[in-house]
């Protein structure tokens, strides 16, 4: 099967969960998470009300890591099977990761301002390493759009996406390896540093953000695939 024919054939690939179901689940879960965060979870004994940023900030950070991880996995699939759709999926996943990365930086800065009195601290490894990870994947788009569409662009993008995945465990472990850090450690070797309703609200928020990210991923991917089909149809009818 030729490359173009394969691209056409893959467009029709269906998913087990319809997009409408995903969208409804996202709306329901995000609403439930907000109710738990603001009306059920108790105030933190140390940080008080401001700790409520944690539920979405940490969930968004882990969702961003998941998006970058998915982007790297799809990049590997592209290099392995030479599937043009895997390249598109990798691109969309990294795009989602960068969007969630912006949210991590924004919510983190707001939390830092309340807790530490500063919007940003360059002395904090966790913050700087996340910024490095974010900028690395932001540069992915510069690389991708500096090369003409085709197999070369797909291969360059895939290799770059795979390199970036190495930064994810480094960013995640930085706070655990740092000797002096004021950024709170949420997950230790012995499990999460909290329980009760705080844990329930966090788990629901995490699931809600992951489902929301997956829904947005599917929406963007559907748009990109239709765009690709239209481009090809335009070439045929020209």
């Amino acid at each position, binding site marked *: 099967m030729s490359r173009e024919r394969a691209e056409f054939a893959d467009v029709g690939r269906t*998913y087990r969960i319809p*997009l409408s179901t995903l969208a409804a689940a996202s709306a329901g879960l995000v609403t439930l998470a907000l109710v738990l965060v603001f009306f059920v979870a108790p105030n933190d004994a140390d940080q008080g*009300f401001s700790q409520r940023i944690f539920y979405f900030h940490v969930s968004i950070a882990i969702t961003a890591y998941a998006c970058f991880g998915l982007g790297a996995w799809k990049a590997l699939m592209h290099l392995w099977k030479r599937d043009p759709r895997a390249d598109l999926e990798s691109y969309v996943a990294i795009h989602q990761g960068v969007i969630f990365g912006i949210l991590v930086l924004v919510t983190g800065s707001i939390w830092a301002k309340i807790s530490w009195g500063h919007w940003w601290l360059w002395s904090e490894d966790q913050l700087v390493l996340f910024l490095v990870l974010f900028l690395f994947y932001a540069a992915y788009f510069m690389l991708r759009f500096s090369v003409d569409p085709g197999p070369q662009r797909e291969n360059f993008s895939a290799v770059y996406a795979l390199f970036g995945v190495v930064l994810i465990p480094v960013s995640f472990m930085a706070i655990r390896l740092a000797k002096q850090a004021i950024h709170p450690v949420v997950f230790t070797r012995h499990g999460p540093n909290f329980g009760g309703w705080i844990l329930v609200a966090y788990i629901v928020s995490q699931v809600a953000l992951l489902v929301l990210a997956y829904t947005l991923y599917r929406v963007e991917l559907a748009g990109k695939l239709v765009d690709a089909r239209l481009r090809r149809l335009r070439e045929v009818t020209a």
Partner: protein
Amino acid sequence: MSTAEKYVTAAYCAVFAVVLVYVVIIALKVQRLEREVDELEVRAGAHDGEPERERETAVVG
């Protein structure tokens, strides 16, 4: 409203705003795709010499 409450509200509003902007961008893109489909239908109709057929409803996703 205390300072902490203001900051927490700002953080959640920022999340909501970014998701909203993203959805608006996607909606604009869908509108552009619809225009392009219309354009292609007209072009296909002109090629065939047939009147433009009514567009069928398609399930997305």
